[in-house]
């Protein structure tokens, strides 16, 4: 059943639906109402999706993407865990590099031109703390700067600047981003609020925490908790569009069992096929912090890391096969990342300690397959201090995907990532270069504050709308510090103008934040050289 049919069949006119679709009470509209039809409109085939796969713990990239041309140095650095050369999976047409023997699925994707391997991705002055390194990857900050929001969140805030005021709406009835899991990550945090939602199961929103439903016992507090949860489910924004999307897909390809990554990707495929216009999905899987017992002592091709490699490879392969079977593989590309790689030299407990740069995978029918970059230089006689230097800044990957897959303009990318990064050919989207759709999204919702011009050199004019009462407009820097208060007083409802003169402030990204009661909206602004 098509999504449209599902909705039409399940909402007879004049039936009271005890829920909302896209935030609008549907009972007031018949199925022929153009407004309702706009809520049910077919998803455009041009809508692109990015799936971000986080490998928690710091993946050992050197045993995942193995340098064949410097195999001797590789082997000598980690004799107790090195993959035997004759077990390395080879890549068609590229003999310098191979994959971990568990990754037959990714080998197939590579050979079909659906996998791009980017060598030695990192950033200057790498950090070896899980927390800090994760924050750097999620926020796309420099190593020595703190940013308390995420790169994907900032992208979505640029594309949907009015969110969440007036959302969902007919232009964007679906979540902007979905994290599979119970808690949203920093990557999806926008400048002022989360830009994504988290779900564990698209058909059952009672699962509040990772499939664990804390019981509501037969007690007074159990009764009240059950009541509040019921209201929470009814009011959970987007729950009905997600359930409807999931219900559209009744049959999917096979996924390996006992593979938590595969299970999450299966949900993603279902929601993409089901018609959600959601742009970004995040999934994550853990266990990559392999300080010890990375391989078994007797066979370095089996053990914990081999199981992790199998999980990643089989999960992605099953996902790709499913997307193809569902007819949506044109719309999706994915990428993997981990907060850091591991040390070149292994330790004595058949493990590896925290390291620096590591390879990333970008996969999908519309990626430019191949290996980007050269094998990392491995010194002969590597010591415990030797790390893999980065060839590509991870923000180049973000920047390239934003540009080539989501068609984001350079000036906006600079706002999102704070500066310019090298462009690497990774993805193919023929729609990039054409115009038209963007404004629909950028004007969707309730626009409460805008500025013009943007980018600006010295000053820019802010126009804001207040519903009355105390209203604050201030300018924040990328660290969230308030650097200029433009107005801070009680207003009567209406639309007002303010000038922001940036004299004395460095070029870069600023946020104009409107606060009106508990309503907020944040507008990114870019100051450039005149």
């Amino acid at each position: 059943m098509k999504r449209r049919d599902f909705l039409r069949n399940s909402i007879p006119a004049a039936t009271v639906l005890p829920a909302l679709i896209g935030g609008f009470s549907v009972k007031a509209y018949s199925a022929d109402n153009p407004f309702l039809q706009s809520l049910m409109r077919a998803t455009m085939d041009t809508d692109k999706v990015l799936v971000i796969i986080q490998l928690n713990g710091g993946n050992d990239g050197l045993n995942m993407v193995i340098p064949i041309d410097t195999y001797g140095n590789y082997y000598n650095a980690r004799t107790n865990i090195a993959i035997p050369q004759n077990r390395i999976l080879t890549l068609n047409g590229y003999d310098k590099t191979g994959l971990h023997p568990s990754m037959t699925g990714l080998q197939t994707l590579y050979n079909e031109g659906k996998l791009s391997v980017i060598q030695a991705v990192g950033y200057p002055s790498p950090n070896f703390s899980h927390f800090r390194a994760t924050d750097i990857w999620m926020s796309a900050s420099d190593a020595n700067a703190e940013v308390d929001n995420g790169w994907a969140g900032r992208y979505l805030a640029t594309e949907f600047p009015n969110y969440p005021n007036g959302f969902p709406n007919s232009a964007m009835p679906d979540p902007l981003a979905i994290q599979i899991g119970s808690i949203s990550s920093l990557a999806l945090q926008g400048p002022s609020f989360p830009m994504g939602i988290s779900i564990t199961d698209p058909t059952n929103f009672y699962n509040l925490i990772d499939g664990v439903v804390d019981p509501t016992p037969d007690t007074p507090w159990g009764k009240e908790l059950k009541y509040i949860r019921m209201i929470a489910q009814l009011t959970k924004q987007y729950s009905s569009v997600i359930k409807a999307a999931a219900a559209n897909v009744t049959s999917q390809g096979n996924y390996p069992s006992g593979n938590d990554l595969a299970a999450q990707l299966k949900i993603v495929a279902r929601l993409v096929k089901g018609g959600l216009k959601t742009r970004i999905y995040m999934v994550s899987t853990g266990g990559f912090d392999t300080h010890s017992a990375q391989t078994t002592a007797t066979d370095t091709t089996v053990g914990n890391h081999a199981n992790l490699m199998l999980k990643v490879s089989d999960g992605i392969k099953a996902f790709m096969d499913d997307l193809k079977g569902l007819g949506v593989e044109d719309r999706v590309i994915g990428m993997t990342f981990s907060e850091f790689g591991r040390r070149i030299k292994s330790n004595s407990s058949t493990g590896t300690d925290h390291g620096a740069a590591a390879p990333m995978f970008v996969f999908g029918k519309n990626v430019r397959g191949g290996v980007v970059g050269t094998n990392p230089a491995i010194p002969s006689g590597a010591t415990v201090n030797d790390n893999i230097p980065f060839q590509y800044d991870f923000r180049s990957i973000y920047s390239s995907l934003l540009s080539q897959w989501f068609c984001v303009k350079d000036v906006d990318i600079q706002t999102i990532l704070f500066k310019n990064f090298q462009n690497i050919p990774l993805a193919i989207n023929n729609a990039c270069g054409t115009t038209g759709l963007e404004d629909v999204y950028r004007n969707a919702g309730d626009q409460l504050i805008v500025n013009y011009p943007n980018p600006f050199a010295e000053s820019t004019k802010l126009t804001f709308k207040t519903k009355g009462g105390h209203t604050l407009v201030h300018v924040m820097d990328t660290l969230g510090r308030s650097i200029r208060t433009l107005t801070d007083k009680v207003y009567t409802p209406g639309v007002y103008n303010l000038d922001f003169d940036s004299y004395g402030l460095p070029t870069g990204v600023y946020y104009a934040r409107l606060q009106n009661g508990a309503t907020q909206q944040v507008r990114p602004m870019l100051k450039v050289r005149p």
Partner: protein
Amino acid sequence: MDRRAFLTAKHSSLTRQPESAFHTARTTSGLTPYSGPWTAEEIVHLLKRTMFGAKPDDVTYFLSKSMSQVVDELLNPVAAMPSPPVKDYSETDTIAAGATWVNDYPADNSTEQVRRNSFKKWSIGLMINQDRNIREKMTLFWHNHFATEAVTIDNAQLLYKHHALLRSNALGNFKALVKAVTIDPGMLVYLNGYLNTNTAADENYARELQELFTLGKENNPNYTEDDVKTVAKVLTGWRIDFTTGITNFTPAKHDSSTKQFSSFYNNTAIAGQSGATAGDVELDALLNMIFSKQVEVSQFIIKKLYRWFCYYTIDATAQANVIDPLAQIFRNSNWDIKPVLSALFKSEHFFDALNRGCVIKSPVEIAVKACREFSIVFPDATTDYADAYNMWDFIHFQAAIFNQDYADPPSVSGWPSYYQKPMFYELWINSDTLPKREQFTDTLIVSGYTRNGKTIKIDPIAFAKKLSNPGDPNILINDSLTILYRVPLSDASKNTIKTSILLSGQTSDYYWTNAWNAYLANPTDSMNYQTVYTRLRDLYKYLMNLAEYQLA
């Protein structure tokens, strides 16, 4: 339709829960003094019900005392009554900015309005800055009981006086409070008592005095419609001098005929009086007659207290083991409030596991508790009153949009959550208010609320530092839940929250411990700070977004 059938019919289509879901277990425990464990859990339960939340410092303070000592301390405030609200508005009057306006009578309409707002902000400030006792919670209880609407009273001075009366009598004698409220100028305005004269009786207060304030409407038999009219005659002649805001009795407006009541009141006749003391003498006689219906009055008030402090469902066991003996205590004490509260708060019933966590926080509680429990730093109310009032205004406004506008309840019946069967507290939570509650706590912890260059914002690190061992992620979560929640989270849920938020997906606890210790060792290092700050921020935001947070 009986209550249970109504509930089932109303909810079954939404919840798809089996009918048995509404046969909730209740307890047989009664007023026997509680002698079980006395830990932070019990203290937080007691404080969440009797105050606006429990701060870690409050718990530490009370942990060294026995249960009985803590209850006694809560019931015996020593601090003087608060200083009155001050001029925080710009409208022109004779009052200096920052000086109190409560003795200035009267003002024009726009000034009265900003003064009423000043009063509301100040009231919220008193709750946020409350001492460790029950006074502010009881003031709110009496405000809900003797409900008046500021917008109707209109005159801000009378509004202030009315609430000051409730506060100073909050833990005193109920019968004395009824008398004081009857001739309180704010109440005389609100229920038209000042228009009630021998030539034009107004029955408004006469009815509510019996139906809402003392006897209730569920007695069988009960007072009659004629009794309402006759009570109105007793209460004729009370007037207000609007130039001073003081009640006076005008003998010429008083009905001096004999007042004959129904058999419900044992055919009591109140002899008509005249002269300056007539109103007072007849009022005493009236209250003696009403309070002679001892069982009805005591049952009515005790049930209201029970629904406020314990739970809204009163089954036969609770009636027999708690309500009846408390009503007896109330009568024996000649209507003193404290002995009743003392017996309740020291009882097995109050601390019974089945009676914990089942109160849905009211809007004022959600708004004020978030400020108190996290010890949000507000602008100093003495040195920077204007900014302090601005912030209290924000908190008051939030509670108002969650449907509880302090000093302006929807009617003389108070807020429906305390009387409307069968949903009671559940009326606070609906598809409009629940997202707003979440938006409010999100604002407090993510961006804070900024006005006039000052920001109120939850400092999650400062909160964590108050806990016993914030470096251990398991203890940190347990300690946090002890303060913030009153219902349990499963170990599986706690573990997920720990791993996903505090450990950023890692499996070893020491990653959090190391991050916390690095921060403590060098707290001025912004990277160390940011690492623990974002994780604690996300932890508390998440905890406040779960349904469990709405319960107290």
